């Protein structure tokens, strides 16, 4: 009895904790306690397929995987420039990258930006704009430094609130660039496609000064030499624009006035290690090591997602309600207890969604949850049918309930294991939406086993300890009359 009391207390506190977890965000700020998938909150989901190139023929080889890793970083960098609050960039399989952009205003821009091979441009400052540029750039430079610092911080600390700040800053930088700097520079036709390599390099031996070395292809090298010849010693800058945002404005030394910077390479100096690395990555993000292609793109309007949530919630509540009514009508007292256990099940399951790291609720996920409620009934049905059989065999109520649980266990275990096997296959096959479904279903199966074997059992035995409820007809229609002597015969 002591163990039962203890279990009852445990179940009640578990349920209370789940309720708190679910209701707290709703009451506090009116937001959903779940992380919602794109199909529910609207947004854009883009799957990029990494393609083999001339130099990297096999994506699954170590070099190929390194290239995919580079692409992933580049894409993450581009995504950060989109100004989406909580973007998700994720490797799927060994040659795909999944990008989720929730609540994005312009999905078209996102698609073209992510799929585009190059947005890095080297522009030439117009003559006669030196003073104007200098004044503007002096205001602008702290912003760039701030952005670089933030980027580094995010990489190290992974704090989501910094991401929002960075997104805002990126937008600000782009706006200022477009308003002020675009008109001060001429396009030269040198862009990321011409860039072959970019890497950070220590300058001299001191170690504090770093430079970024860049290498162009033949065409880029010629154009670059041309441009630098014109700019050398004038004090005008090369404008390095990434996605229309000015990211660097190096000058060209007077010594290059004769021929320009030839040889297809250049060094931009005087950086700290971090800024040099950051700049090299940004340069590279204008040129990908392997081509990519948009394999899939799904865009869901924001209100459409809200409608789906609403409809799914109705469907869920409707389904659960019908099941509860059925259970009470058919199985009477145990049915009512199972209904309580089912509600507890639903709460625990939803709380698990909140707690599971990285779990995103999607439409198929909601279907999986609703389905698992129907399934959670199964264990109870197995137990109660068994209990009825035992009652009909003339056993006492207590023995029957006990026998119901013991005898039904092997069926419950087998049927749940087979479901989990199918879920494992689903998880293994799936991406995104499909995985969400497999995870919700698996969790449903596990939690339902717990609630059926623990909650239903504890509650039922608790009820049996109340004499007024200890009547076989509450458990089974037309039970045989039981005499006290029979109970002792039963093992």
């Amino acid at each position, binding site marked *: 009895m002591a163990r039962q009391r203890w279990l009852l207390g445990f179940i009640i506190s578990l349920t209370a904790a789940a309720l708190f977890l679910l209701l707290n965000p709703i009451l506090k700020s009116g937001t959903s306690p779940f992380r919602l998938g794109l199909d529910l909150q609207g947004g854009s989901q883009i799957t990029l397929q990494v393609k083999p190139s001339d130099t990297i023929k096999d994506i699954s080889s170590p070099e190929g995987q390194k290239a995919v890793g580079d692409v992933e970083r580049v894409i993450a960098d581009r995504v950060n420039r989109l100004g989406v609050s909580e973007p998700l960039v994720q490797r799927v399989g060994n040659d795909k990258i999944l990008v989720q952009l929730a609540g994005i205003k312009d999905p078209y821009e996102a698609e073209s930006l992510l799929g585009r091979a190059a947005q890095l441009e080297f522009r030439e400052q117009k003559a006669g704009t030196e003073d104007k540029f200098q004044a503007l750039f002096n205001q602008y430079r702290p912003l760039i430094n701030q952005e670089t610092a933030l980027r580094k911080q995010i990489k190290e600390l992974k704090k989501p609130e910094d991401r929002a700040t960075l997104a805002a800053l990126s937008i600000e930088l782009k706006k200022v660039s477009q308003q002020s700097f675009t008109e001060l520079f001429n396009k030269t036709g040198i862009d990321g496609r011409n860039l072959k390599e970019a890497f950070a390099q220590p300058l001299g031996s001191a170690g504090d000064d770093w430079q970024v070395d860049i290498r162009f292809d033949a065409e880029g090298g010629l154009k670059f030499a041309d441009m630098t010849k014109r700019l050398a010693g004038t004090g005008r800058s090369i404008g390095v624009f990434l996605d229309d945002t000015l990211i660097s404005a190096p000058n060209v030394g007077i010594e290059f006035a004769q021929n320009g910077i030839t040889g297809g390479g250049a060094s931009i100096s005087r950086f700290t290690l971090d800024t040099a690395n950051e700049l090299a990555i940004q340069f590279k993000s204008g040129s990908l090591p392997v081509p990519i292609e948009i394999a899939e793109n799904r865009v869901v309007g924001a209100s459409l997602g809200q409608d789906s949530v609403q409809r799914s919630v109705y469907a869920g509540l409707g389904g*659960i309600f019908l099941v509860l009514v*059925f259970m009470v009508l058919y199985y009477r007292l145990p049915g009512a207890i199972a209904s309580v256990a089912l509600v507890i099940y639903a709460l625990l399951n939803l709380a698990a969604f909140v707690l599971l790291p990285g779990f995103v609720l999607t439409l198929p996920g909601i*279907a999986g949850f609703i389905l698992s409620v129907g399934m959670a009934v199964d264990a109870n049905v197995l137990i109660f049918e068994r209990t009825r059989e035992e009652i009909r065999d003339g056993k006492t109520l207590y023995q029957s309930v006990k026998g119901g649980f013991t005898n039904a266990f092997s*069926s419950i275990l*087998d049927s749940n294991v087979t479901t989990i096997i199918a879920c494992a296959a689903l998880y293994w096959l799936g991406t995104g939406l499909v995985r969400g479904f497999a995870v919700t279903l698996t969790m449903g199966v596990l939690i339902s086993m717990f609630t059926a074997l623990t909650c239903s059992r504890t509650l039922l035995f608790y009820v049996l300890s109340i004499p007024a409820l200890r009547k076989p007809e509450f458990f089974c229609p037309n039970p045989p009359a039981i005499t006290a002597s029979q109970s002792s015969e039963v093992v």
Partner: protein
Amino acid sequence: MRLQVIQQRKLWWGISLAILVAGIISMLISWKTIGAPLRPSLDFVGGTRLELPIACPDPKNCKADVLNLEVIRKVLDEQGLGGSSVQIVEAQGNKPPAVSIRSSSLDAGQREKLQKTLTEKIGAFDMARSSSETVGPTMGKQLFTSGLLALLVSFAGIALYLSFRFQWDYAVFAIVALLHDVLITVGIFSILGLAFGIEVDSLFIVALLTIVGFSVNDTVVIYDRVREVLAVDPSRSINDVVDDAVNQTLGRSINTTMTTLLTLTSIFIFGGETLKFFALALIIGFAMGAYSSIFIASTLLAWWRNRSGSLVVPVVVGE
């Protein structure tokens, strides 16, 4: 009520065969006419689907007649998308009537251009309720192969588990029953595809795998009972045992299937477009799962044990 499953087994087998054959014929016809046994959605063949609901401030009073099919087709023709299919989708919930266009794969620029031209010709669209999907041609093939693979793996996993927990012949007939459920679901969707143009998407594969996971439950429960009764009295004829086992578990089989179907029906009715046919596939599959467990898996096991004689059935270690 007592079911005589063994006595009437020819009837049950006949019903199953009839539905299976109908499905297979439909798949063959479908193969001839559209080149695939089921009507594949974008997920499998690639392409772009755009759904643009018209903007209307008062959702109860939307004029769907601005969505003129001829005007839309003309725009599509002008943009070299003459082969696209166009449909008018009726208002649903808060979503106004919409035009749904399915075309070859379009990139962002092409989509924007199409949408712009349509807006000029027809009027503003409610972009917050619009949706678009673009799937490249390689994705579909991968989805198909990995889906098939996942099905095979789950079959193998379940067969392995059942031969470990029961005996190998139990496992084989459980798998036969599963194949039966999956094939019938596929067959019915093939018929639905021919008759109503209903397509199968990636969620259909998910549905098939879920059917595999769930409908084996009913079979397991019945087999569990067969094993239990046999253990008490091994000398009883297998026909009697199976009949008993089916009848003793009948209440559970019906009630479990019913409660699951209740929730699925609720998804089917309220769940919205995406989940509608997912729920339908599950409804068919689960209903078939219960049917095949009660009438097919049980009678096949009895038939096999009678034929081979219970003595020659190898006993798996651990039984």
